[in-house]
């Protein structure tokens, strides 16, 4: 009964970083790791020997760790469609409107790692995704790749490894304590579910267009 054997071998899940208690983890017998699966718009950071996995179509995941502080994490995001009015009525510049969710996703992950003791200069950054999998006039995957590269360039954070573009979705498994990433290209038949989920995510970004909470104390 291999299933029972595996169950008895399953170790106690490692501690969770404060703020990520709600995230579901499962024991993955293949990798022998407790694993977190993140969805579009989510991110996860850990101090433990866990795996973080996600499936990417045109979205991007940055896998970032500090090998010395032994903390690492992964995000999963895309830029919303550029819906800036062409008549120039929007006062905030278009670049701000279209990239702020990407910047937010990158900053949230990096900030949490720094709070766990990571040092900016030591960050090892790997970037994945940005495939051309959504049937759209514009190459959304390429926009996402261009964004993450220019963001990291602006922040002076070098990319250590990448696997981006192409027309296949990817399943990514990240092992932050080792820095190892396993990427599997998925077959075109698996695209539909992924692109449906990404479309829903994109719609939710549009709905959230008003940005975060604002509170005046006086």
């Amino acid at each position, binding site marked *: 009964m291999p299933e029972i054997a595996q169950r008895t071998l399953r170790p106690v899940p490692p501690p969770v970083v404060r703020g990520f208690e709600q995230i579901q983890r499962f024991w993955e017998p293949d990798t022998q790791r407790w694993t977190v699966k993140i969805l579009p718009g989510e991110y996860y950071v850990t101090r433990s020997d866990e795996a973080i996995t996600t499936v990417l179509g045109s979205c991007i995941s940055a896998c970032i760790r500090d090998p010395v502080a032994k903390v690492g994490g992964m995000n999963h995001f895309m830029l919303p469609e550029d819906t800036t009015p062409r008549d120039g009525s*929007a*006062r*905030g*510049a278009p*670049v*701000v*409107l279209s*990239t*702020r*969710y990407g*910047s*937010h996703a*990158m*900053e*949230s992950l*990096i*900030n949490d790692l*720094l*709070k766990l003791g990571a040092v*900016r200069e030591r960050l090892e950054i790997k970037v994945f995704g940005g495939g051309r999998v959504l049937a759209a006039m514009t190459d959304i995957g390429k926009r996402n790749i261009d964004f993450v590269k220019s*963001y990291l360039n*602006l*922040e*002076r954070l070098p990319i250590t490894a990448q696997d981006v573009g192409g027309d296949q979705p990817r399943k990514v498994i990240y092992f932050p304590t080792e820095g190892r990433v396993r990427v599997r290209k998925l077959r075109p038949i698996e695209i539909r579910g992924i692109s449906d989920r990404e479309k829903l995510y994109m719609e939710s970004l549009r709905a959230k*267009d*008003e*940005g*975060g*909470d*604002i*509170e*005046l*104390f*006086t």
Partner: protein
Amino acid sequence: MPRILTVDDSAAMRQMVRVTLTSAGYDVEQAKDGREALDIANASTFDLVITDVNMPEMDGLTLVRHLRGMPSYRHTPLLVLTTEGSAERKMQGREAGATGWLVKPFNPDRLLATVAKVLK
């Protein structure tokens, strides 16, 4: 035009805030952490300071406390712009002397509306 000092350790975030504010005609200076912001604020005067919280050298709440202790910034609006949105952190901001708390990602028009409001 009012002068605004924006403080953030992220160059991408500084750029987004600067582009948004300058598009509305404000005069914008930038600092990459609380320590640098304090030096710039000491050497010059500003009508508003917008600061991130988590930064190296000096965090945003410490910066707010320092500015509130300076006669020239006692009544200056000081806004916090951060990824953090917990009630606990907002309370710390309020106690430090912040005028308001904005959670990222920011909507450019709403940021400008808030800036106009606190500058009145």
